[in-house]
Each structure stands twice: as structure tokens, then as C-alpha cells.
């Protein structure tokens, strides 16, 4: 974790932070400029990249995690085995690019940048009065800092803020560096929004909970899963864009993805910490009873993992399938290319269990 060296002198056991502290980046020896755009984060004297807004945020998250451990509670782990593979995989993507088929890859990279930017919606999540909805005290936890800087820092990291770009702009830069400012296919947004339109409003799995609390927890669990699975996407992006056979700027584009990946770690950590804190507590229901936080968090995570493993691989394929036959026409031998792509397919079956199944009975 890149923030470690900077935070050594800050008291490691501090549990309460002001909003401004959690949003503080400190100063950098050199800024990060991506594709001519000033972005967040920057470099220290030694040239190492340091993520934005981590001066206090990283030590804070570590202190909250240490406290959980002291109190004998485990940190929530999302099983990586539930992570569907990226489609097209790195080899398939490289093959397409080598054959001059760029649109599908440009589209995928653009969708990644937009989805990253959409992460900003986390700042619109309403935080209920947790002190009254959680039985046990919440002082000195990540949970108590969600509305006090953690969500806001996350939002700024993803979509950029004020005069700095964020992950959205960094992915755009990586794409434009590697593929030399490609033309963006006109249907990118239509495909994304079409998928959204098809989705139904989710029913409430825990109607006995305060609705704002339930929504907040559901969104946090959703974002946590997305962030963890994004590791696969980052890995894909890194390997593809730093491959000199297909990338015009293997070093710079690869480095950009590496910086984004470094920035994501605080997101995963604060979300799993706060959800673990809920798991270790008891929630009040609207009808005056209580519910174990563990049953709620695990129930939410279970549903999300089940849905994601079922829908995501299909969505990625659907995104591409219609356009692939059209897109490969620019290749010297379209049919052979399609056959070769098929041969490179990654076999994957979703795990039979999410590991978060509700206990029987």
C-alpha cells in the first residue's frame, strides 16, 4: 500500500477523523498528468506514486481494522473464485487488436472509464442516523465516518473533482495513449443505458429494516463486490495496454492502470471494514425488534454474488456478440479470426455456492 511510508508518524491507533482529514492528499513532488489532463494523486521525491486522499484515510482504515481484530471480529472476505473472467480475455483482446479490430476494445475500455466515473454516485447515498439504528456504539469506526468523508473521498477518486481528473479520466488516458486516441464507437452509451433499462427495481430483502439503512448497506455491498471484481478488469487492462505488440505506449498506459489499481485499495478496505463492523453488531428493526448485522450483510452479499455470477459473464458477451461479427469485417480473414477467438475462450463455471448462503431454517 503506497500510503504506508507517509503515514508512519501519524498515531496508528487514532479512530476519529475530521472530514477534511479524510479528504486530505498532502503535497506531491510532482503531479500526475494523464494525456494532458491533470489528475489526482502524484509522485513523491523518489518518484513513487501516492494515491490521493490517503494521508489520513489509509491509517484510519488500518486503525479501524486493527480494532475489529482486537475485538475478535473477522474482516469480510469476498471469494475471488466468484469472479467471472473478463470477456474478451487478454489473449482474445490482443488478437483482435493485432488484426486491426479496435472498436470492441475501445468500447470496452470506454465502458470501464464510464463505470468508474459512475462510482461517484456513492456520495448520493443517504446515510441514516446510524447511532439510533445500531444497538452497539459506533464511535471510532469506519461506519461512523461514511458520511463524514469516506463516501466523498471515494466519489472524488472515481470521477475526478474540481481541477483534477479521477479514474474516469485516467482510464480514458490509458485508452488514448495505448490506442492513439481512437474514435469512440457511437453506440457506447446506448448499450450501457439499454442494459440499465432492462433491469427491474430490486425488491427489499429486509423490509423490517429502516429503508435508508437497508439501501445504504445494499449499495455498499454491491460496490464492494464491483470493486473486488474490478481487480480482474484492472489486471486485464494492465496486461493488454502494457503489451508492446498492441499498445502504442506500453509503459505509460500500463503505469496509468497501475496507479488506478493502487487507488482502489482504500475503497475495498473501507467498505469491507464498515460492513464487517455491521456484521459485528445488532440492527434495530422498524417494529422494535432486532436483527443480527451478520445475517443482513451476508444476506445482501449472497444475493449480489449470486446475481453477478449469473448475469455478468452473459452481459459482457451480449455487449460484444452483436457487434463482433460486424467489427471483425475489417480483419483480413474475418471467419478465421472468429474461429481463433473461440479457441481462446476462457472456460468458467460459476461456483455452486457463494459462501454467504443464509443458514437453513
Amino acid at each position, binding site marked *: 500500500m503506497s500510503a504506508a511510508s507517509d503515514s508512519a508518524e501519524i498515531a496508528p491507533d487514532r479512530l476519529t477523523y475530521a472530514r477534511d482529514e479524510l479528504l486530505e492528499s498532502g503535497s506531491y513532488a510532482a503531479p500526475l498528468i494523464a494525456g494532458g489532463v491533470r489528475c489526482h494523486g502524484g509522485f513523491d521525491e523518489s518518484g513513487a506514486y501516492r494515491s490521493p486522499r490517503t494521508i489520513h484515510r489509509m491509517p484510519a482504515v488500518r486503525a479501524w481494522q486493527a480494532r475489529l481484530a482486537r475485538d475478535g471480529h473477522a474482516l469480510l472476505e469476498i471469494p475471488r473464485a466468484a469472479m467471472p473472467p473478463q470477456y474478451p480475455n487478454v489473449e482474445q483482446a490482443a488478437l483482435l487488436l493485432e488484426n486491426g479490430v479496435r472498436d470492441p476494445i475501445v468500447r470496452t475500455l470506454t465502458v470501464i472509464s464510464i463505470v468508474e466515473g459512475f462510482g461517484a454516485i456513492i456520495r448520493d447515498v443517504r446515510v441514516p442516523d446510524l447511532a439510533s439504528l445500531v444497538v452497539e456504539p459506533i464511535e471510532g469506526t469506519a461506519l461512523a465516518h461514511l458520511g463524514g468523508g469516506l463516501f466523498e473521498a471515494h466519489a472524488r477518486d472515481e470521477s*475526478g473533482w474540481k481541477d483534477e481528473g479521477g479514474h474516469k479520466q485516467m482510464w480514458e488516458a490509458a485508452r488514448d495513449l495505448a490506442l492513439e486516441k481512437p474514435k469512440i464507437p457511437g453506440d457506447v452509451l*446506448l448499450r450501457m443505458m439499454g442494459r440499465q433499462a432492462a433491469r427491474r427495481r430490486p425488491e427489499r430483502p429486509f423490509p423490517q429494516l429502516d429503508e435508508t439503512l437497508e439501501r445504504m448497506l445494499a449499495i455498499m455491498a454491491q460496490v464492494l463486490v464491483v470493486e473486488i471484481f474490478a481487480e480482474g478488469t484492472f489486471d486485464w487492462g494492465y496486461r493488454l495496454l502494457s503489451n508492446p505488440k498492441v499498445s502504442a505506449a506500453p509503459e505509460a498506459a500500463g503505469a496509468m492502470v497501475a496507479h488506478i489499481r493502487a487507488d482502489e485499495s482504500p475503497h475495498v478496505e473501507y467498505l469491507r471494514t464498515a460492513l464487517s463492523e455491521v456484521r459485528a453488531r445488532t440492527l434495530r428493526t422498524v417494529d422494535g425488534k432486532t436483527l443480527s448485522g451478520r445475517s443482513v450483510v451476508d444476506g445482501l452479499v449472497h444475493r449480489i454474488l449470486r446475481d453477478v455470477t449469473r448475469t455478468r459473464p452473459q452481459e459482457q458477451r451480449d455487449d460484444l456478440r452483436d457487434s463482433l461479427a460486424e467489427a471483425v469485417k475489417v480483419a483480413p480473414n474475418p471467419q478465421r479470426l472468429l474461429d481463433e477467438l473461440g479457441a481462446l475462450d476462457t472456460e468458467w463455471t460459476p461456483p455452486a455456492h457463494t459462501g454467504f448462503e443464509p443458514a437453513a431454517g
Partner: protein
Amino acid sequence: MRVASLAAYLYAIYKLPALARRLLGRAKATDRELAPTHRRAAAAILATALAMRGVMIKACQAIATRADVFPPEMVETLKQCHDAVPAKPFAEVRAAVERELGKPLGAVFARFEEAPIAAASLAQVHGATLADGAEVAVKVQYPDIEEIVRTDLRNLERLCRFYEWFDPQPLELLPLLQELTRHLGYELDFRREAASADRVRAIFADDARVVVPRIHPEHSTGRVLVMERVSGIKITEKAALEAAGLDPAEVVQELMGAYVRMILAAGFFQADPHPGNLMVTPDRKLILLDFGLAKELPEGYGLGLFELMFSMMTLNESAMIRAFQELGFETKTGNTDTFLLITRRMLARSESGSFEGEFTEEMTDELFEAIRQDPVVKVPSDFVLVGRVFSFLSGIAHTLGHRANVLAAMGAGPPG
């Protein structure tokens, strides 16, 4: 010219008393004191509009959609321009339809209602039944409307030149006007309208929550449009929506979602979302009507608009400046500091430093106000109808008392 005498009348009832007050050293009149004046003004405007139809009705529809800007007396009086303009006598309608279809009414329709369902700026709409039993709505263009619109547009152009002459920092109105004029001209061609309806319906082919009435092309001409008859609650009738068990907040969100999809994603949109053209069914479907005013954006423009709105929603100044430039906004000096000023001004509106993802009426207004005050001279013509749409949507949201979360409408998933 009627418009000129209307202008003189409005001047007399608003400006002269204000002048007198100033001379007498009295405070500015409050809105409440002005209410009778607003009522008289609205009545005068309405009378002129009803007599003239066409562009004047369009202007009144815009006023009546912006309850957040105009006084309530004005909005209340003018809202009948959305769909309840007094109709032309049936004999005229019958003659027009028979002339257009080249056969007697009875040859096409098993039944034709003499009283119209509604009437607005360019046409009135009658319920009817086709020979095969299909229930249809027949949109019949007012017979003399072409001439009226032509005159209106000439007058408008003069008015704009007049205005530019006096305004110390004029917006370049003429290009904007040209864009509007071009589209008004198109609006009189119902074949084009039919094609636009088909295109928008295709955009929502996978989304059953948005309805565009089907067209019967075999019975339609350039001046008569026969389409599937639909029914629903006018989108601004908040009490009726609630009585039907609909949540106005959701209605606002779905409306924004539909427009975001048309404008940003598809690059083709129904550009006239005044409340007369929008209905909601009790089973939560949004009906889009009236594709007379529809706009196709150049390729890539939707993505540019997406970037602009996205950067506004996420308070990203530098991205906003790039988006302005990409969309073809130009400053007089070529200096981008102007864009920075505009963005800062807009973002300063948000006290918390966040818009909470909402595209508010303040933002739309602030954008236009900022553009006016700073020396941005060129608003790209492709932006004109987009801006108009968002202005209407803001007005409707205000009337319903809820704001849309734009990030969610763009597909960012549900906010809390």
C-alpha cells in the same frame, strides 16, 4: 400587428406603475401586489396567442411549463395552451381531413368524434375508430397554420434583431433562432413527424415502460396523422398521479431517464417535452406524444453532452471545460477562463459542494444566465434544443416537487 400591441400593453401594465413607484420613492411591488397585474397580463397574452396560434402558443407553453420562473397566475392561465386551445369547428376539420385523404370520412373511419380530444399550437386531435375497429387519434393540422407560422417567424426574427441592437452583451440570438425556425418548419410536415415517432419508438424497443403511439401510415399524409389512441394522466397533474398510486418522484426520475437515453445515448430525441406531450399511465408507463419537434444530433455529440452533464454532476471543473469546448461553445476571446468562470458559478450554487447528482432548475438557469453574462458568444446550434428540453424537464420536476438524480438516470445505479 397583434404582437406589437400586446407588447405595448404589457409595457403599460408592468413598466409604467413601476416607474411611477420609483418616482414616488416607493419600494418595488411585491409578487402579491402584482398578482392582479399578472392575471391581466396573462389574459392578454392568452387572448393574443389563441387568436394567432402557432409560435405564440409555443411561447405560452414554455411559460406555463416553468412554474419555477413565472408567477403562478401566469402559469395557471397559460397552461391551457398545452392541450386545451379552443378547437376549430368540426366542418373545417372534416373538410381538411377529406381533402387530405382524398375520400369521404366514412370511407376510412367507422366513427369520428366531432369534439376534439385536445388542441394545441399546430393541430387538433380527434378520437376515431378505423374500419377494422382500431381506436385511433387523428391529428389534423389547422388549415391556415402554414401561413401563420411563416408570418410568426418573420416577426420573431425582427424582434431578435431589435433585441440584439439594444442588449449590451447580446447572446448571438440569430443562430439560435435559425435552429428553432428550421425545426418549426419541419413541424408542419406530419410525414416527418411519423418517421420521428418510429425512430423514438425503436430507441425504447427493449423498454416497455416508455410508450410511443403507433402510426397508421396508410391513412396519414403531410397534414393528417392517424395514430394509436392512448390515454393517461397529464404529467404535471400531481394530485391525479398520486390518486392513481403513482409516486411523483419516480415519475420525475423515469422522465429524466427517458430523455437522457434519447439525447445522450441515442442522439435522437423528441424535443418538445411540455406537459401536454407527456402522459403517465396508472401502470407506470411514460407516454411520449408529439414528435413534430424532434432533433438528430451529430455523431458523437451525445457523448459530448454526457461528458458535460457528468462533469457538472461530479463537480469536475476541468472536465466541464473540456466538454464545453468539445461541444462547440466558443468564447469571444478564445480564452478558456470564461468557461472556468461559468463552471465555478454553476458549481458555487451548490452549498454542500455537491449537487447530489441532481440536475436542478437552478443549474439550467445558472448555465443560461452565466452564458449570457460572460462573453461567450457562440452557443452551438445543436445545443439549442437540448437546452430547451432540460429547461422544460426542470419545470416539470419543479411542478411535481421532486428532482431527478441524473447520474442514476444515466445508468449509474440507484442512489440511496
